[in-house]
């Protein structure tokens, strides 16, 4: 099959992706607390380290050292399995996103693509793994043997499977434009032309629908009724403590990161930085680095939008939420598909 060098490179790529994800997520937690503080007229945590930059490590230490409480009557196996499923499903989607173009390591002749795994069904893979993530929440709600957890778990999973539909349908417009499910090729199709071929210009309605469905999918405000503290104690993770709660927390932020990366890849052109072609040439190491940084900047923009929306909007009631998902988002997504198909049929300009 592959040589040993390929296997080593793959492991290195997986490790790098893993480390990058964990670092970004840890600092997203900190950024959320700071930015929410600024929106609400106060400072966030700024004691630990310069400006609070070591706060995530303090949080991690706290989570590891806390006492691990397991409720008495819960089914032990499922109780431990649930955060594992949630975190695994969140992490497994990392491998299909292209972080940058092919780069050539300086002083050698090895070219490595900056994507860990290159599938030709990349987008379907992401949708599939997102569907598996619902199990973590349902099993957590059930196995805690607590009626608030059960209600929170059932509501949360009902919300997630309802908005998965709108999510998938809003992406069909992009798939029709690109003609492929392969994420690296979708990014390649948006390159060149200095940002005027990014899919957000061709699919504005799809983009808006995708963002709303994505916020609902990751259980964030304004769709976070199932885990809001004032509503259902803490929803499905009421009975979880220490490391298991940390895994759920981590899974939620990794989901946010994943969804932002998907939005960047599909709508904002992935790693394409607009006027980079005039300064650097493709294929060099510096080009790859700048592209990867551009990708990161766009993802951080989306994460900031998430935090901004959290600080600004009130939350939906559960029946309003389901109403919105089924009666408003779903028809709009179908309308988007119809319009895109009509326009492609009459103006084959791609």
């Amino acid at each position: 099959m592959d040589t040993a060098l390929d296997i080593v490179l793959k492991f290195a790529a997986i490790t790098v992706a893993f480390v990058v994800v964990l670092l970004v997520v840890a600092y997203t937690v900190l950024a959320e607390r700071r930015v929410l503080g600024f929106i609400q007229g106060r400072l966030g945590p700024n004691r630990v380290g310069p400006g609070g930059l070591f706060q995530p490590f303090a949080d991690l230490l706290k989570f590891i050292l806390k006492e691990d409480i397991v409720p008495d009557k819960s089914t032990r196996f499922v109780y431990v399995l649930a955060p594992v499923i949630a975190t695994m499903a969140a992490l497994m989607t990392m491998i299909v996103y292209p972080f940058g173009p092919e780069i050539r390591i300086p002083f050698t002749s090895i070219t490595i693509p900056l994507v860990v795994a290159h599938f030709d069904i990349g987008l379907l893979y992401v949708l599939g793994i997102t569907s598996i993530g619902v199990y973590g929440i349902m099993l957590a709600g059930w196995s805690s043997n607590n009626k608030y957890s059960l209600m929170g778990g059932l509501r949360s999973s009902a919300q997630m499977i309802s908005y998965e539909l709108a999510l998938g349908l809003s992406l069909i417009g992009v798939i029709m434009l690109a003609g492929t499910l392969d994420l690296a090729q979708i990014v390649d199709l948006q390159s060149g032309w200095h940002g005027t071929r990014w899919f957000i210009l061709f699919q504005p309605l799809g983009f808006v629908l995708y963002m709303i469905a994505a916020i609902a999918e990751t259980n964030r405000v304004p769709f976070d009724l199932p885990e809001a503290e004032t509503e259902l104690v803490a929803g499905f993770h009421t009975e979880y403590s220490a490391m298991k709660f940390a895994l759920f927390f981590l899974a939620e932020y990794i989901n946010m990161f994943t969804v932002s990366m998907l939005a960047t890849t599909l709508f904002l052109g992935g790693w394409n930085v607009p006027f980079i072609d005039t300064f650097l040439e493709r294929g060099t190491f510096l080009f790859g680095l700048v592209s990867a940084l551009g990708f990161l900047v766009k993802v951080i923009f989306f994460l900031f939008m998430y935090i901004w929306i959290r600080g600004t909007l009130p939350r939906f009631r559960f029946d309003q939420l389901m109403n919105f998902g089924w009666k408003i988002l779903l028809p709009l997504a179908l309308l988007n598909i119809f319009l895109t198909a009509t326009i492609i049929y009459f103006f084959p300009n791609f």
Partner: protein
Amino acid sequence: MLTLLFILFAGMAIGCGLAVVAQRNPLYSAISLVGVFISLACLYVMLAAPFIAAVQVIVYAGAIMVLVVFVIMLLNVEQEERGRNRLKFLVPTAVVLAAVLIAEVAFILFSVTNPTPAVSNIGLSSSIGTQLFTRYLLPFEITSILLLMAIVGAMTLARRGGLLSNEARLIPGAQQLPRSLVDPRAAPDDLRLVETDSTVEAGHLLGIDQRNTPKD
């Protein structure tokens, strides 16, 4: 290498399949069934069918089993008890007959010649999509009508009662109600009367919110 992967995924599929049958708690059976689906999806990828593998995970593992686990949680299904008034020899007989069936199938399978496996491109979404929309369009459209039928059927089954409209109100006083309105298991044309002593009791029986009824 491929053989190793096949043995791994096949072992997982058979192990989880046995767990589905052997577990007494239906929730554990459901989780094992999800394990079967995921290992089958990995086998489909080995068989050059990546699109079908992704659809298997999305539809079976991600939607159908979520629905089944929902129902198990909502209905609060408990574990099966050990066989009470069952024929005692049923389980061992089933297992023995199953083993005989497997032996027969294995004998037939291993005495025929195998076609040569080749790396193929047939499972990509583009080839499936092309065939599905040109040559096999009619089954595709009929499938969509089938799904519509299933949606309508599921919604009809899930509706509760419904003989009274949302605007129904009670006129105060002692009531005489036909049995069909009160008892959901009676026939719709069962007109034997149920006498209630007060408007409140009638409201409880019919499920009408008393605050909407007009006062004298």
